[in-house]
């Protein structure tokens, strides 16, 4: 006869069968399987079981709950048993969460980021600073709350146990991932940052400064990367304004010098404006003979100069104005890059995660922007350091910049030279069929652009008339642990696909749940993103409207990690090892893409498939799987799972084969993808070889790619390149000092060498 039980805190209390019956009733009702009399019957059997096992000893709570689970099953209340198990797991979780949260905050507070892996989960946040720690504490608290209160129990379980990973989980209830900011639209008429109003910019310097502010402002409204899809087109307008101003200034000065006049600027301004009106051309970099003729006529009419004098004057003025504009543009681009590497966002905890896309604007102004941003990237920061931000993306397009004779071919070549030194730009290929289908010449919004690590937005099931890159982005993404599904299938392909299907459905539901939270927000929650009309159609909303409909322009993405390990677990080899495995790999990823397409049609929303970047995830999943399954050769025997569909980094393969094998996955992963190849330092110094790799990517249908090579820098002598044990310039080893005179000698040899200030 059971008389008492032991509670979790050790206290002994009287046994009360009614309490057990009412817990059972709640489970039965939740599953719609039974009523109070069923609950009483099950409770009776629970008591009988406990008496059999414990006689007159007191069972504890866990023992009783185990018995309830078993008796629900015995009575055939399977769904209720499941509901009960989940309820129980949730309660356990709630109890443990508080302790875990405090432990995490303790680690954030006390441990150096260099030895705390948790604090280095995102390499972009400095966990050692005050604001960085505050951000991490907030993040830990938000995660605990979101898991407990916002996730369905089955999603929480899948997330906690590593079947799936919900990215940016700390922001679950707060915002969306990323956006392509159309700066042309934003700058028109000026904009407000939420902390003050900025007039429409009037020179390339202010265009560039405002572009950085736009990125910074939007970074505070979203948790992911911010991107400008039309950097060249947008900045070109600033170049045109700077040129016009420089033209008027140079003309004024030249004329004042020639005729010994003063204060002619207002007159010249009028004269230029009149000439623009009569010639229907503007003062701009492009060859404008009619305009220049009109200016010459105006000068001859107004001043005592001959036609020949006017012609000489105009040629000289034009040359000087071009030079001045070019110099200003370089300085503006240099300032922009410096700005993005030093400016703070999120209370100073990180620099904005920023990308800029360019390469296809063939106007003289656009070309000037592209050349100068590349030159600024090439020069590096103040001490010659490689710039970390923004991510530069060069858009490659046949007929525009890919082949000799294309108007921007010279800039493509320059980009290769710069990337060979600085790792950027990356390349996006507009000729890949899945990008080309959206491309309309003369409409840059139809050119695919990239943001963050690899995110891409183009197709639009919600609004097929708006299949564009501008003003859209990802809403949220969740990744599937593919190797685990494969391991659990134990070589059974059918079982693998059945389980994969279940997981896809689970993730789609979770993304929709998250969407419901996002959809309930309003303009005032995102003063810049929505308040300034950065997001597509947000300018049509009023303060009362929720964001549901406009957010549907965004994407809900299902990601994955470890195709290579999944194939090895299922079939024994990965897709780098045989064509048969490549076929199997494409079947798996194709299956996932099909699911996304079907779900998109069903919901009239954009479900897309993502080749997940997996910075923190690569270690998280495999550590859990090692615990669960032990070390399986080729599957769980390393410290990381392979990124998305990549051929494993340790596998020996040629550039050509890596690109050939990975390219077809780019077509399938419409939410984003990237392939990179690793070159050694010598190859990279050969720009022809570098370009041939980019061309190989283009020709195989890669969507987005980049070339990795070691970029080392010795802060003491400023050498940038490959450094083994010894610096090739100054000859010192890591940590060693060299005589100050030696530095002076080197300075004579390398005049551009930055001064070493001793503080690094």
């Amino acid at each position, binding site marked *: 006869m059971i008389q008492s039980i032991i509670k979790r805190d050790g206290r002994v209390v009287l046994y009360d069968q009614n309490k057990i019956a009412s817990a059972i009733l709640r489970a039965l009702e939740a599953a719609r399987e039974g009523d109070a009399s069923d609950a009483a019957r099950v409770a009776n059997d629970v008591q009988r079981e406990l008496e059999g096992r414990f006689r007159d000893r007191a069972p504890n709570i866990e023992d009783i709950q185990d018995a309830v689970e078993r008796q629900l099953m015995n009575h055939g209340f399977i769904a209720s048993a499941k509901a009960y198990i989940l309820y129980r797991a949730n309660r356990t979780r709630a109890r443990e969460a508080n302790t875990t949260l405090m432990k995490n905050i303790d680690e954030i507070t006390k441990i150096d980021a*260099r030895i705390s*892996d948790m604090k*280095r*989960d995102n*390499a*972009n946040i*400095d966990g050692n600073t005050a604001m960085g720690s505050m951000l991490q504490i907030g993040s830990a608290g938000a995660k605990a709350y979101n898991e407990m209160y916002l996730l369905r129990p089955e999603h929480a379980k899948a997330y906690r146990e590593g079947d799936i990973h919900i990215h940016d989980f700390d922001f679950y209830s707060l915002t969306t991932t990323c956006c392509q900011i159309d700066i042309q639209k934003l700058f028109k008429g000026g904009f407000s940052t939420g902390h003050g109003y900025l007039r429409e910019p009037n020179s390339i310097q202010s265009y560039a400064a405002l572009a950085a502010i736009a990125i910074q402002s939007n970074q505070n409204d979203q948790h992911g990367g911010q991107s400008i899809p039309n950097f060249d087109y947008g900045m070109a307008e600033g170049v045109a304004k700077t040129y016009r101003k420089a033209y008027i200034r140079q003309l004024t000065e030249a004329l004042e010098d020639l005729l010994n006049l003063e204060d002619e600027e207002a007159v010249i301004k009028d004269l230029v404006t009149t000439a623009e009106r009569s010639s229907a051309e503007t003062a701009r970099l492009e060859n404008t003979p009619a305009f220049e003729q009109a200016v010459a006529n105006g000068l001859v009419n107004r001043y005592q100069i001959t036609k020949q004098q006017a012609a000489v004057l105009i040629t000289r003025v034009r040359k000087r104005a071009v030079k001045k504009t070019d110099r200003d543009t370089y300085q503006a681009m240099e300032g922009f890059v410096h700005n993005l590497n030093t400016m703070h966002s999120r209370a100073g905890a990180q620099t904005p995660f920023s990308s800029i896309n360019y390469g296809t604007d063939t106007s003289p102004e656009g070309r000037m922007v592209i050349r100068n941003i590349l030159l600024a990237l090439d020069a590096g920061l103040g001490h010659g350091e*490689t710039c*970390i*931000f923004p*991510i530069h993306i060069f858009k490659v397009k046949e007929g525009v910049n890919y082949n000799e004779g294309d108007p921007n071919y010279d800039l493509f070549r320059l980009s290769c030279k710069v990337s060979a030194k600085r*790792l*950027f730009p*990356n390349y996006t290929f507009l000729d890949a069929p899945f990008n080309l289908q959206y491309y309309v010449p003369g409409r840059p919004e139809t050119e695919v652009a*990239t943001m963050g*690590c*690899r995110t891409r937005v183009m197709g639009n099931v919600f609004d097929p008339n708006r299949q564009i890159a501008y003003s859209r982005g990802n809403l949220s993404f969740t990744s599937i642990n593919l190797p685990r599904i494969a391991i659990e299938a134990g070589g059974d392909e059918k079982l693998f696909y059945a389980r994969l299907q279940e997981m896809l459905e689970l993730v789609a539901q979770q993304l929709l749940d998250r969407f419901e939270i996002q959809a309930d927000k309003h303009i005032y929650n995102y003063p810049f993103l929505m308040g300034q009309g950065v997001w597509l159609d947000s300018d049509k909303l009023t303060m009362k409207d929720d964001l549901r409909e406009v957010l549907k322009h965004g994407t809900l993405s299902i990601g994955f990690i470890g195709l290579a390990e999944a194939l090895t677990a299922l079939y024994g080899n990965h897709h780098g090892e045989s064509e048969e495995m490549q076929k199997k790999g494409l079947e798996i990823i194709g299956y996932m893409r099909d699911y996304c397409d079907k779900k998109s049609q069903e919901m009239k929303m954009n479900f897309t498939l993502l080749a997940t*970047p997996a*910075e*923190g995830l*690569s*270690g*998280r999943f495999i550590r859990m799987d090692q615990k669960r399954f032990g070390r399986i050769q080729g599957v769980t025997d*390393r*410290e*990381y799972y392979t*990124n998305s569909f990549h051929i494993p*980094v340790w*596998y020996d393969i*040629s*550039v*050509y*084969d890596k690109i*050939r094998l990975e390219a077809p996955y780019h077509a399938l992963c419409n939410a984003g993808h*990237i392939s*990179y*190849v*690793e*070159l*050694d330092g010598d*190859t990279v110094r050969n720009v022809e070889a570098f370009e041939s790799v980019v061309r190989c990517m283009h020709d195989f249908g890669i969507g*987005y790619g980049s070339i*990795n090579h*070691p*970029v080392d*820098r*010795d*802060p003491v002598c400023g050498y940038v390149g490959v450094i083994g044990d010894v*610096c090739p310039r100054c000859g010192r080893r*890591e*940590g*060693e*000092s060299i*005589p*100050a*005179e030696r530095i002076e000698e080197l300075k004579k040899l390398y005049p551009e060498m930055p001064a*070493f200030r*001793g*503080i*690094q």
Partner: protein
Amino acid sequence: MTVKSENEKLGQGVGFERIRRITGYLVGTMDKWNDAKRAEERDRVKHGLKNNA
């Protein structure tokens, strides 16, 4: 973290910076990387330009 030493030598204790691509983006120095990504970077092999297809 050092300055000029007394006998006019420079660079004592100053390491080399090694910039690598972590996923799609770069990270300033590798001491900010998490353990798994560090291991991955260590394992990366160079890809030859020869076509061995």
